[in-house]
């Protein structure tokens, strides 16, 4: 349904268009059952970045404070991309893995469910 304005063809700036991020795209990364990080983090990342680099270079900066982090078995991590289960190819780029501008990546670590299993 169109917005009713006092003039025809109401529209405004698309502030978060990918072109505005200087060659990067936005990616959100969250860790399920670890509410210490109250919400997913937002990161500007090059679409060509390999998924493996995201795991190695970005994720630790976001979540390594959590005591569970050191115990993650990266082979068992389950990933969700924009709400769907997904198996990333680590040496392929974010773009080739289907991670687009403003995609949300969620990490699920079976067996690791926060401090004392509390989801925190």
């Amino acid at each position, binding site marked *: 349904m169109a*917005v*009713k*304005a*006092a*003039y025809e063809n*109401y*529209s*405004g*700036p698309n502030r978060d268009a990918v072109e505005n991020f200087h060659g990067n795209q936005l990616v959100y990364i969250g860790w399920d059952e670890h509410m210490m990080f109250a919400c997913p983090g937002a990161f500007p990342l090059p679409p060509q970045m390999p998924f493996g680099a995201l795991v190695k270079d970005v994720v630790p900066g976001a979540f390594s404070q959590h005591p569970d982090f050191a115990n993650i078995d990266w082979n068992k991590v389950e990933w969700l991309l924009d709400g769907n289960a997904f198996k990333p190819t680590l040496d392929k780029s974010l773009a080739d893995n289907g991670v687009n501008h403003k995609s949300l990546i969620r990490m699920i670590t079976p067996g690791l469910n926060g401090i004392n299993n509390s989801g925190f």
Partner: protein
Amino acid sequence: MQVDIKSLSIKPLRNTFDQVVRFTGSDKSASRYLEATIGVQPEVNFHYKPLWSKNRDLYDKENTLIVMSDWYRLLDPRQYYYGAWTIARSKQQDAAERNFSFVEKRNMLEAIPADLRDKIITTFLPLRHMEYAANLNNTYMSAYGYGVSITQAASMCAMDRLGIAQYITRIGLMLDGNSGDTLKTAKAAWQNSPAWQPMRELTENMLTTEDWFELFVAQNIVLDGLVYPLMYQSFGDLTSASGQTSFAMMTEFMSEWFDEHVRWTDNIIKVAAAESDSNKAQLGKWIQQWQPQILQALQPVAQQALGSAAQAGLDAAVAHLSARLNKVGIN
């Protein structure tokens, strides 16, 4: 309160807000006026384009042709923030209340001769409609203007105009013993009588003026600058000359108000004109554009109010306005 104060150690970390420091250039303790005014309006990072304007932001400097490097410099010499304004007005309304009840208790209005009474009804009471338009116009300046210095003063002015429209209404109700008949007659004159039509047309045109600063000039400088001297001074003198003090008493609020209004409005155009030649030229252009129209629309009203003294009344009003404009460097 039981406080063990180590008074020597209690030193302020700062004396005022940073936005005031940026404006005055020093962290001296600041006046309530400045703390209430400077930097309060949002300036950047507006989230959504307004549905009500195709080209403008929620707060937009380009709503007028006037350009200021710092809009906060359009200060109000009265230093009115809400509290100072409303306390000042509450005192004035107290005085007005006493005047009205003085006139009422002594039935002073009964002594007004019929012809003067008619004049008050058909040439003075219609001003309540003009004041209502002035209320809308100042509300417009408050809505679309830039920087709290001028917009808050416009807001107060808008409410003042509503108050004045209501005082004029009260004069009508006192004249007709609360029947409302005088107001009906006055409104019919405003709506239909030939003498008022040029002014009503001008008023309706003014209500569609888009540039808020132009509206400030047209309404608060030129129109008020001519109407108040004409109606509260010359017409007021005429009522007093016939031995009637009641009119002057009941319009004391307006007369005092206008003196104060002039102080505010003149400072605004003075500072705006001093900012740049282009501002000065633009202000001059607006005055040249509005003054003849307003003067022309006032002719039949002046005629009706003052009769043979009409031209003298208009001349005096023009002289009053010209003197003000000369003083602030716009002519």
